[in-house]
C-alpha cells in the first residue's frame, strides 16, 4: 500500500498501465450504449486526456471510476443510440462437421439475437454485453454505472428475459 500511495497518475508508466487496463472497456462500454464507434473512440480520448489533466488530483485507485464517469457524462442525454453492430467470432469454422442446416439455423439465431440486442434498453444491453463479452463482474459494472450491484442484477435479469421474449416472438 505504501508503494501504491507513492504512485502518481502523472507518471507516464502509471498512466500508460491504467490506460492499457481500462481503455478497451471504456471503448466497449460507450459502444454498447450508443452503437457508435467514433463516439466511443472520442470518449476514450476525452476520458484519458481529462485523467491526465487531473492526474495530480486522482489517485491511481480512483482513476478507473474517474474515466468511466467522464466517458459516461460526455454523452449524457446528448446523442441518440444507434444500431449496435457486433461481430461474431467465427467459431463455426473450427467445427466443420456441423451440417449446413445447423450452420444456417445458427446464423439465423445470431441475427435474431443481434436484432433483439438492438431493441434492448441501453442500460440492459450495456450490462449484458459488458458481462458476456468483457467478462465484467456485476460489481465492476455497478461501479461504472454508478449504481448498486442489485440494480445491475435487475438489468441483467431483464436483459435475458427480454432477449428471450424477442427471439421467441412472445
Amino acid at each position, binding site marked *: 500500500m505504501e508503494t501504491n500511495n507513492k504512485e502518481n497518475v502523472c507518471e507516464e508508466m502509471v498512466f500508460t498501465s491504467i490506460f492499457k487496463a481500462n481503455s478497451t472497456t471504456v471503448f466497449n462500454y460507450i459502444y454498447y450504449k450508443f452503437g457508435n464507434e467514433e463516439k466511443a473512440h472520442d470518449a476514450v*480520448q476525452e476520458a484519458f486526456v481529462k485523467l491526465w489533466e487531473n492526474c495530480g488530483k486522482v489517485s491511481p485507485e480512483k482513476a478507473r471510476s474517474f474515466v468511466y464517469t467522464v466517458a459516461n457524462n460526455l454523452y449524457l442525454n446528448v446523442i441518440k443510440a444507434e444500431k449496435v453492430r*457486433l*461481430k461474431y467470432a467465427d467459431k463455426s469454422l473450427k467445427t466443420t462437421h456441423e451440417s449446413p442446416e445447423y450452420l444456417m439455423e445458427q446464423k439465423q439465431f445470431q441475427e435474431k439475437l443481434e436484432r433483439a440486442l438492438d431493441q434492448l434498453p441501453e442500460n440492459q444491453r450495456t450490462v449484458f454485453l459488458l458481462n458476456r463479452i468483457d467478462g465484467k463482474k456485476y460489481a465492476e459494472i455497478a461501479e461504472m454505472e454508478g449504481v448498486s450491484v*442489485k440494480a445491475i442484477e435487475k438489468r*441483467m435479469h431483464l436483459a435475458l428475459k427480454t432477449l428471450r421474449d424477442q427471439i421467441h416472438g412472445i
Partner: protein
Amino acid sequence: MQENYLAKWLNNELTEAELAEFKKSEAYASYQRILEAANTLEAPDFDMEEALLAVKNKRIFKDNTKVVQLAPFRMFLRVAAVVAVLLAGAYLYLNSLNESITTQYAENKQVVLPDNSEIVLNADSEISYSKKKWDKQRNVNLEGEAYFKVAKGKRFTVITEGGSVAVLGTQFNVENRRGFFEVTCYEGLVSVTFNGAETKLPAGTSFIAINGKMINSDAPETNLPSWMNQESSFKSIPLKYVIAEFERQHNIMVETQNVDTDQLFTGTFSNTDAHLALQSISIPSQIKFKFEGNKVLFYAENTP
C-alpha cells in the same frame, strides 16, 4: 425463485434447488441458447496502442492549445505594456522638451522669452530653453551666435559648449562657433565661465576664446553687435572664422586655395551685399576671389 434469478444463475449464485427447478423449466434451454450465441459475440476492434498514441498527442495538443488560448491575452499585456511605456515616455519627453528656435543660413530671428527678455539670433544658430522651468531658472542653451537683452530678475544663464554666461539683467552678445567663443557685454555686468574659470565682464568689454585659448581684445566701439546692423565686424580674428561667418550670412559656399586662413583679419563686411562683402574680405587680406553662382573661391594673388 429469488429475485433476478437469471442474473444469479449467470453468476452461479442459485441454490441447488433453484438451479434444479430452473433447469426443468422450458425457458432454460432457450436461455442457454442465447448465452451460447452471445458467447461468440465480439466487440468492434479497438486498437489500444493507436488510441494511447492519440491520447498522448491530444495531451500535447491540448497543452499547446492552452498556450495559444492564453497567448492573445499575454500578447495584449505585452502590447499594453509597450504602449504604456511609450505613452509615459512620450509624456515625460514632451514635458521636458525644450522650446527650440533655429535660424538657417542668412537668417536672423528675434525671440521674446516668457519674462520679456529678448534674444536676437544670428544666422545658423539655435537656442533652446525649458518653458516649464523658466520661472525657476532662466537657462538658455545656445549654439551659434545671439544677442541677449535680459530683463531684470533672477540669474539668467546662457549655456554653450564653449562656456556659460550668467547675468542678472543686461545686454550682451554671445557667439559660440566651432572653436570660437565670444561674449561681448553692452550693458550691466556679465559673468563668463570658461574652462571652469569665471571672468567678470563689465559693460563695453569682450571676452574671446579661440580653440580654448583666451585672447585679449579691445572694447567694442558700438553699443550693439555689428551683425544687428547688417554687418559683421572682426578685430584680429583668424580669417577662417571670418570666412565661416561670411558663409553663414550669405549662404554661400566658400573654398580657399593657397590662402593662409589663420592670418588675422580686422574689418567689417556687409551682411546684405555678398559682392561688397567679398571685396571687404579679400582686399585687406590681399587675396583674390572668384564668385560663381553659389560658390566662392578665394585664392592667393600669385597663383592663377
